[in-house]
């Protein structure tokens, strides 16, 4: 449904998106992951035809994202990162406006608006000003507006940013339903639990797609073992371990310090012989299975030593 072929965007000599190759199947939810500034928003803006690609090209349903940008618009909806609706218009007025502007037939707008209000559970709020809605409702309204013309493809730029877990869950339920209806979704996110819900995820870092796989398979990209330690006091321990040569990084997970290193078992053997930090008290260790966050951290912080060596196939 979506195919990107060596798509690049260069601002002031810097490649914000670098030779991006990607294909997204119809009906799937593709999660684009990456740290801030990785080029996720620029990628979506190019897909939407709001920014002209510097080189390469992409298609949505076979239509070029730049050359056919006016035509292709009818086939996708876009939900921006920031709340981008009219706060002084009511929920219904926002929906009706976007319906009219997107060329929905006059006779169909009313029924379409009703349907979307129901789908996004906003019927009770239909006459409230959009600006007065809570964060979760605002996002649902944004989603409804993006869906007003019943597009086949939906681009969502960090749709859950700023939402509490309950509202994130609600929104994801909606996204699942859309995917079941056969719509193709491309979502950018920072949340690893959300990434796990996608049918496929891609890691974008400095404009490059570093990995792309199914969530359950992408965890296998982390080839090393993961050692977790219990050390007191925690914060100085974290700092000391982070600075130890050979350890790529350390993070705190539910009271345990998780170590990223290409051969953690070597460190364990050494420490069992002699613990090098007399001021810190080591009380226990265990082995952990890498999850999405570990893979994300490894890719975004360049822990090449722990990752499977392979080329990303577009």
């Amino acid at each position, binding site marked *: 449904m979506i195919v990107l072929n060596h798509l690049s965007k260069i*601002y002031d000599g810097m490649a914000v998106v670098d030779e991006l190759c990607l294909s997204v199947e119809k009906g799937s939810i593709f999660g684009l992951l990456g740290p801030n500034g990785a080029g996720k928003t*620029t990628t979506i*803006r190019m897909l*939407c*035809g*709001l*920014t002209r690609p510097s080189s390469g090209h992409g298609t949505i349903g076979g239509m070029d994202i730049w050359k056919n940008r*006016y035509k292709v*618009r*009818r086939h996708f909806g*876009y939900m*921006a990162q*920031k*709340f*981008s*609706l*009219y*706060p*002084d*218009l009511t929920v219904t*007025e926002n929906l*009706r*406006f*976007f*319906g*009219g*502007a*997107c*060329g929905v037939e*006059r006779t169909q707008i009313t029924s379409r608006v009703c349907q979307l209000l129901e789908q996004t559970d906003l019927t009770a709020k239909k006459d409230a000003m959009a600006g007065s809605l809570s964060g979760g409702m605002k996002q649902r309204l944004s989603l409804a*507006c993006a869906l007003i013309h019943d597009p086949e493809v939906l681009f969502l730029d960090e749709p859950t940013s700023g939402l509490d877990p309950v509202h994130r869950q609600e929104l994801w339920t909606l996204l699942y339903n859309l995917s079941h209806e056969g719509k193709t979704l491309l979502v950018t996110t920072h949340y690893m639990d959300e990434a796990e819900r996608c049918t496929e995820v891609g890691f974008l870092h400095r404009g490059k797609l570093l990995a792309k796989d199914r969530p359950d398979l992408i965890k296998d990209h982390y080839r090393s073992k993961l050692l977790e330690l219990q050390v007191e006091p925690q914060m100085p321990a974290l700092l000391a371990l982070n600075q130890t040569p050979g350890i790529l990084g350390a993070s705190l997970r539910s009271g345990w310090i998780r170590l990223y290193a290409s051969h953690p078992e070597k460190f364990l053997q050494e420490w069992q012989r002699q613990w090098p930090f007399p001021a810190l008290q080591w009380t226990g260790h265990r082995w952990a299975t890498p999850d999405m966050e570990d893979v994300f951290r490894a890719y975004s912080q360049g822990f090449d030593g722990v990752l499977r060596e392979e080329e990303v196939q577009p």
Partner: protein
Amino acid sequence: MTLRLPGALLSIAYKEFIHIIRDWRILLLLFTLPPAFTLIMGHAFEHGDLSDVPTILRNEDDSAESRQFVDFLKTNKAFAWKEETGKGPIPDLLHAGVQGVVVIPSGWGKGLNSGEPIPIQAVLDGTDTTTSAEVEGVLDQALGAFQIKLRDEMVDNMPDEMIELGKKIPEDFRNKIVSTMAQWTVKTEIVYNPKQKFIDFVTPGIVGLMLQLLTVPLMAVTITRERENGTLSQLLLTSLRHWEIVVGKVLPYLGLSAIVIAVVMGLTHWHFEVNFPRPWPLVLLCFLFLLCSLGLGLLISAFCDTQAQAVQITVFFLLPIIPLCGAFAPLDQLPDAIRALAEVFPLTHFCRAFRLVNLANAEFRFLLGDIAYLSLGALATFTAAALLLRRTQS
């Protein structure tokens, strides 16, 4: 496809209309400012005859002639006289609370009869250049009229011997003397604004300035607001074309401005008795000028990143227009370079064409240049705004 267009365009016009009616502050401004401004500016520029200028009239002479002149001056309504007698230094105007001092010097009456007339002294407040010049004119006029009055009295009371003597002068020379004794006059016929009503001159300025002061800033924030809120990207992703967005945004303002024009022109007609004998050419002019102003606002809007920038640029743009548009002062006296600059502003063309229609009853060909300029201006600003719309924030 063609059936879809009006609907999409109307939906953006309707949305823009809701923005306006939801913002009661702006709405209040739109409906109170034009009539209030019209009344204020109309009365400020109404400019009737000079009257009741506080002036000290000191008669140091106290002769029959000076008393006669004082009585004569007192009939003039231009002054509110404070009479003084006796001598002394001329008082400071500010301290005396007057705008002028007129002194009839001692020996004035005698001088009139001895063949060596002494000038009357006048000290006038120059802070207000218009009033001082007018007061001077009124004084000159009064003195002239007084002189003619004395001459007529002298001729009436001329002794018979003198008349006999006069008959001995050769006729053509005698006629010449009579001619030079009479006041030579210009018989003026003023056309186009025969009553010389200043309000008729400034009406286009009031209408035009009002439109520009309201529409340009309002329009200037419409696109920048969308850019700031992030809604512009959403708008650009709908099926709306750039020109549809631009036209759709302008439509409600066009309607509102039409009401503003009607209110301002209605007020000038009923309150200030300005007539609009040829309404249709004026409607055309107002429409074109309005498009130009809205286009300018849109252009500023499409060009700026934030609403604050848009408002600042609008203010800087509107400031030079006020003295340079020819609405309140004629442009002919301006230096060439400044005049050329004045010709850039749409309001200059609007004011000129409006007066040509309303006062001079000019034929269409006299308006052609101004109409062409306004049309091109509207077209250019709209096109530029539509092109600049794609410049979204990255």
